[in-house]
């Protein structure tokens, strides 16, 4: 039953995942942690961490949630549900959408997306760094990695590694 619920929910989420995984992170966290209680806030940030550190499309964190909730079947169902509806949409509309490239409504739609996506990515980062009560140590790590990313051009993996090292010191 949980598997069915997870699959249907992810299929809906797939259709509103504008600009990919980052923008649905707030909703994902809200649903699986706050509403359903399938995963604890601490587990959520750890799942996210493993998903970020592993190679591959970051949408795979939804597979980890599926795995956690319903095992291997859950992992496969989560990935298929997260990608399927959006993939079908891409398959049908990609070319049509290209044809409308110069239409004013398409240009407006594209512009309209940017601030919304920015706000959702910001929300995702904020929610991840604030599992439960505000913790200055997590905020410190997040602020340091955000600053580092904006100030330098090195691979993001270095910031993840540094975050891990600081986390090992401060959080244990």
């Amino acid at each position: 039953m949980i598997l069915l619920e997870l699959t249907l929910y992810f299929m809906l989420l797939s259709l509103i995942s504008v600009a990919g995984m980052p923008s649905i992170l707030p909703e994902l966290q809200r649903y699986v942690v706050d509403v359903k209680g399938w995963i604890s806030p601490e587990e959520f940030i750890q799942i996210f961490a493993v998903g970020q550190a592993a190679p591959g499309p970051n949408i795979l964190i939804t597979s980890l949630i599926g795995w956690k909730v319903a095992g291997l079947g859950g992992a496969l169902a989560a990935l298929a549900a997260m990608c399927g509806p959006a993939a079908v949409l891409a398959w049908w509309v990609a070319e049509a959408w290209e044809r409308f490239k110069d239409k004013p409504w398409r240009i407006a739609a594209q512009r309209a997306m940017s601030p919304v996506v920015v706000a959702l990515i910001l929300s995702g980062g904020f929610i991840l760094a604030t599992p439960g009560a505000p913790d200055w140590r997590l905020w410190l790590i997040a602020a340091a990695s955000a600053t580092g990313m904006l100030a330098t051009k090195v691979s993001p993996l270095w910031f993840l590694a540094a975050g891990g090292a600081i986390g090992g010191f401060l959080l244990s």
Partner: protein
Amino acid sequence: MQVSPPRSLGELFLGFLSIGARSFGGVMPWAHRVMVEERRWMTEADFAETIGLCQFLPGPNIGNASIVVGKRWFGVRGSLVAFLGLFALPFVWVLALFALYADFAATNPVLRAVVTGVGAAGAGLFIGTAIKLGRVLARRPAALALIAACFVAAGVARMSLFIVLPIALVLAYACARKGLL
């Protein structure tokens, strides 16, 4: 530049398999390397256009890109093959890594702390990305107001995205049509 699309489904599969296999620290740079530089399936401009389109559609960008380019060359079979090639190895790796982690983390609080630190750093990368993208919009008061309102609703008040997104998009679209964005 001479481009030559993949000649067989096998070649398409192997190309996407090698993108997925090597994609440490982000898939996009590897997608570019394989499709444009190594295998020369498409031109630079073509790649940029395809990715731009996929960023706009819902769903994982690179997943959508595999569907779109697979379809271009081999129809439905191409889409499926490219998608499966892309996800096959990363899917196994991420589960294996997590299983390994879960095994050790149960008895090791330091490991849990390290991984939580990685997560917090990842959260910081999201915040950094939002700031980077938001800078371009900062000259437009309407854009800043939208970002603030949407952040309060989704991030602080934790309202459902199924409510926040339609309202935000309609408002943003109205602003864009009036030339405010």
